[in-house]
């Protein structure tokens, strides 16, 4: 298989990965910026939701790392 075909195959595989909409991104987009930082009062008001979103992000990140490590552990396979 040529390099171009390899790339096409990987792009096709990545397209199949479902889109991940992290709650954290939605939340921080809803918080106004004040003094170059998130608005303190708004963050306090949304504290519970933010804590939940942070946990979700950390779990997502941990799973991603596991997947990356699993891929890196795969041994190269000779082409048939």
């Amino acid at each position, binding site marked *: 298989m040529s390099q171009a075909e390899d790339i096409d195959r990987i792009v096709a595989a990545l397209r199949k990965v479902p889109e991940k909409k992290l709650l954290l991104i939605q939340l921080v987009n809803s918080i106004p910026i004040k003094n170059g930082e998130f608005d*303190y009062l708004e*963050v306090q008001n949304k504290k519970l939701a933010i804590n939940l979103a942070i946990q979700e992000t*950390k779990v997502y990140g941990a799973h991603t790392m596991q997947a990356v490590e699993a891929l890196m552990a795969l041994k190269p396979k000779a082409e048939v």
Partner: protein
Amino acid sequence: MMRGPLVEEAHNPRPQDGWSLSLLAEMLQVGPPLLTGIINALNSIGDVQKFVNLVQLLLPEYENEIMSAPRNKRVYKFCFYFGKKYYPLPANTDCPPAEWVDGMPLELMGLSYGGYHELDMRPGYLLMLALVVYPYEGDERDAEDDSIPFNPAAWGNSVKKWKPAAADIQWLKDMLSSLAVGAHWVAPMGFEIVKVSEKEFKLTNAADTPDVKEVLARTLIIAEKLGIKATFTAGRTKEQKETAARIPLLDKVQDIVGAETVRKIPKHGWEPEDLHKMTDGTRFEGVGDLADWACGQTGCTLLDCSYEDCQYVEGMAAPIFKWTKRNVDILTSEWPKVQEIHARIDKMAQWLEQDQANHFWELVNFLINCKVKPTRKDRMNTYDRSERLCQLDQADEYEEEDEQEQEEVNID
């Protein structure tokens, strides 16, 4: 204070040929924020709010400039504008705002009791200090013997000629081998040692008796024969501290300028007021200021207080000074005077250091010829250590406990 201009320069670094291009590159790097960056920003929002409050309290007119800077440059900006408005902060500008808001950076330059006795200062300061009365006369710390109130290595010629017998050598070998590293051995006659390693022990305590002195001197001779390192800090007795506190200082100065000059200095030295009277307005101006500094009476907190005069929160290695308007106002109003005094002392110290023996001889002769009779204050009965306590607002133990309790209530 006692370290010279090179250290001052290091505290205020400026690039010689302009700022490096890496700073520009850092500013031009843009991209979507990392998830970890977002999480950190949310988690540290409380500290950021405290930092904003601090900026609004002290530098409200620069709030936009400071807060619009990248996070890792805000403390630097704060210091820059603070220095313009109040006084220069002795700051580690790389420190994150979270640590910054906990306490204001402060470099106390007062001469502490420990600092006086360690005598670890530049020659110009040592020479001038030799002219000044002992500032800690009457201090309670002089009212007790040091843990080793003599020099065990300087005990009589008779012991130096002594030759240890085989049994003496065996005794030290057996005693050390019976101890684990770090273990203490207390001799019933009145001394204590700790085994540092297989080839080293440290003397930690000793009673001031002829028997103990002799045994220790002999022990050091045996240790030397065995190739065992023996360490100790030679101290002084209560009497020596109370009546001859200036002797180690004069000995050190004698090593620098010779005995003839030192012999001319009055036994107790001069009071700061006398030195001011004699040297102010002359080419020796600065000597009186050094005397004020040594006696903690310059009237400037930074120069009169040392870290020995502060409150400490348990577990903290340094006192925590609060960011209060009062502290900032005190330090700002004193800053011009601090600079003036510092400059006068340093100028005099530098002149003395240019030709230590001759310049000091010149200074001592000038003072003697002034014919001002040394004033002798009764410090022994009037000394009050609390007068030296740092008056700046500091975090204390009880306050920390209250804050912790308040946080626990908030969490509940």
